[in-house]
């Protein structure tokens, strides 16, 4: 044992004082379904942490063998009883167990070392990689920043998904909802966005936080493996609660994620938080509220279900320069049933967020993936959150797709249509093909700009619709090989200068000449 350690222990023993501070104590009157009713604790505060003295009556050795202190959260202050949700194994709580106030509201320990780790909503690491050095405690519940403390959203978060970055751009500090039925690719969009941040320069790269609320452990484990394989865990923290955990922990998970995000935001850094998903969060809160005997409202949800999500999502912000200019971008996910976006929870969250990305099961089954319904997806921040380069090329694609959707109904009468309509339909089908993208394959924004510019300027003219994807891939390879300066110019300058435009036009012509095998028209 080192001398330094011995000296440290000696000093700690010397400085040790017997603590005779009086602590307010209550007694568990009854416990069941994760809720403990406490007699006493008349001065307890709402959302205060309390600790159960489950080691009373045990020897010192037995106490040391018990791994963690058992905490509870005060959620109901009634006339003669305090109701506390147990944040852990309820089996450790018995009638007659003492409960002490901690005099602090629920908080999570946070530090730089939390990045790259998997933690539970109380900040305890669950990835088996040892303890985490913490810097400070961040309150889990907190009032959001006021209006004057914020600034406008004007910097993009690149998702790496062409359809989103071109037509539904997301900005740093925005809340963009991802909504759709089960198995439509909602989590994939969130994960691709996280992976795509590796293309951002390190000093501007957002810290990513993925909050898994009631997910299967196997799913969380496979997501973590995907992120590790893509090198994204370097800048990502996962807050995980599985489906088998108690509803209070599911309730706390997104707030813990927001608290971790605020720690980095207050240092002037950008953060991306994914809440997957808030439907399960609402269910957990409903379960907890019913057990606490709070009056049920519509669909048995408690009356403050809207406030639950609004106070969570309002914590996403773009701070003013005076406060460091950091931001939290939120990507909440909501699962609908049979495409019903007019249900209670979806409509609540739609009204809170700054836009939504709708994923449609029919489109998914038709092979259009990501299955974005561009017609009803929107970003209320819009082009303020786009680079100049993307703004220049994205306008035409939206118009083409809008016209294509109108003409889609006429496609079955293809032989009866005039030439112009047939050309528009074919052009629309090519744009649809262009916007298809493989899972976990985000594309850096400069390549997106190049691909869309080329599509707008005749790259796919005289080509079969079925060849669109092949042409796009070959063209991007061609650009990487022959026109690296163009890609890096767009990446650094973020706009399409005249010089870059000239080079792009030259590249399109050169590519078409060199790859004539792709160009056989199917328009009769």
């Amino acid at each position, binding site marked *: 044992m080192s001398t330094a350690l011995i000296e*440290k*222990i000696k000093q*700690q*023993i010397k400085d*040790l004082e*017997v*603590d*005779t*501070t*009086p*602590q*307010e*104590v*209550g*007694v568990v*009157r009854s416990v069941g379904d994760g809720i403990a009713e406490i*007699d*006493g*604790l*008349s001065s307890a505060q709402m959302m205060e942490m309390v600790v159960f003295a489950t080691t009373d*009556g*045990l*020897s*010192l050795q037995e*106490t*040391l063998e018990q791994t963690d202190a058992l905490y509870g959260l005060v959620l109901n202050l009634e*006339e*003669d009883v305090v109701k506390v949700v147990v944040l852990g194994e309820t089996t450790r709580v018995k009638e007659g167990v*003492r409960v*002490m106030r901690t005099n602090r509201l629920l908080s999570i320990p946070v530090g730089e070392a939390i990045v790259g780790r998997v933690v539970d909503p109380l900040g305890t690491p669950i990835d088996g990689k040892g303890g985490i050095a913490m810097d400070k405690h961040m309150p889990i519940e907190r009032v959001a920043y006021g209006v004057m403390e914020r600034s406008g959203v004007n910097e993009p978060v690149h998702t790496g998904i062409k359809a989103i970055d071109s037509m539904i751009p997301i900005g740093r500090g925005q809340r963009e909802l991802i909504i759709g039925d089960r198995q439509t690719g909602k989590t994939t969009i969130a994960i691709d966005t996280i992976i795509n941040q590796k293309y951002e320069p390190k000093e501007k790269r957002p810290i990513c936080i993925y909050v898994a609320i009631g997910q299967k452990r196997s799913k969380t484990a496979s997501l973590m493996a995907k992120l590790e394989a893509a090198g994204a865990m370097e800048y990502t923290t996962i807050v995980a609660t599985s489906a088998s955990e108690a509803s209070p922990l599911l309730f706390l998970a997104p707030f813990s994620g927001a608290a971790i995000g605020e720690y980095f935001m207050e240092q002037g850094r950008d953060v991306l938080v994914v809440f997957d998903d808030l439907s399960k969060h609402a269910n957990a809160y409903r379960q907890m509220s019913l057990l606490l005997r709070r009056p049920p409202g519509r669909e048995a949800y408690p009356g403050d279900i809207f406030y639950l999500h609004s106070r969570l999502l309002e914590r996403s912000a773009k701070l003013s320069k005076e406060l460091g200019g950091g931001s939290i971008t939120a990507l909440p996910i909501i699962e609908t049933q049979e495409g019903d976006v007019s249900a209670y929870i979806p409509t609540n969250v739609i009204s809170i967020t700054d836009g939504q990305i709708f994923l449609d099961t029919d489109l998914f089954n038709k092979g259009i993936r990501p299955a974005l319904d561009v017609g009803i997806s929107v970003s209320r921040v819009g082009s303020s959150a786009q680079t100049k380069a993307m703004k220049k090329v994205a306008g035409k694609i939206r118009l083409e797709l809008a016209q294509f959707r109108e003409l889609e109904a006429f496609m079955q009468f293809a032989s009866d249509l005039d030439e112009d309509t047939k050309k528009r339909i074919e052009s629309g089908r090519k744009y649809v093909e262009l916007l298809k993208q493989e899972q976990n394959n985000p594309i850096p924004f400069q390549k997106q700009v190049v691909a869309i510019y080329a599509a707008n300027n005749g790259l796919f003219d005289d080509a079969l619709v079925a060849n669109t994807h092949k042409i796009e891939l070959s063209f991007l390879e061609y650009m990487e090989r022959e026109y690296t300066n163009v890609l890096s110019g767009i990446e650094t300058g973020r706009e399409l200068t005249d010089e870059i435009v000239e080079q792009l036009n030259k590249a399109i012509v050169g590519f078409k000449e060199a790859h004539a095998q792709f160009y056989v028209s199917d328009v009769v």
Partner: protein
Amino acid sequence: MQNAYAAAVIQLIKDGQDVDQVLRGLATILTARSHEKLFQSVLRIVLRTLETHQSNDRVVVASSEDAIALEQAIAALAKQGVTKKLPTIVDPNIIGGFVTETNGVRIDASYKQTLLTLYQTITT
């Protein structure tokens, strides 16, 4: 309603009123208000509450011969304004020192707690 009656009775008893007198008063009021049927449930709540509060008040020491710990416990209680004698429980698990609990306030000056604090300080 029975909770309100029970709370009033408990408050009167805690204020030092004679228990018999309070209970007779309760019976009179219940009859006057035609709430006789609540009498049993009110009594049940009062008894349970008083039992819980009574059983909470105590002094815990490691050994019945640890006079120093007992003296320290009495001094700590006196600082809180508690002068009445509390039941003493012997629990060797606290190793030494004392633990007092009264009126919903606990002072844990046991050696067990002190050693636990030291362990947590060293290991974190």
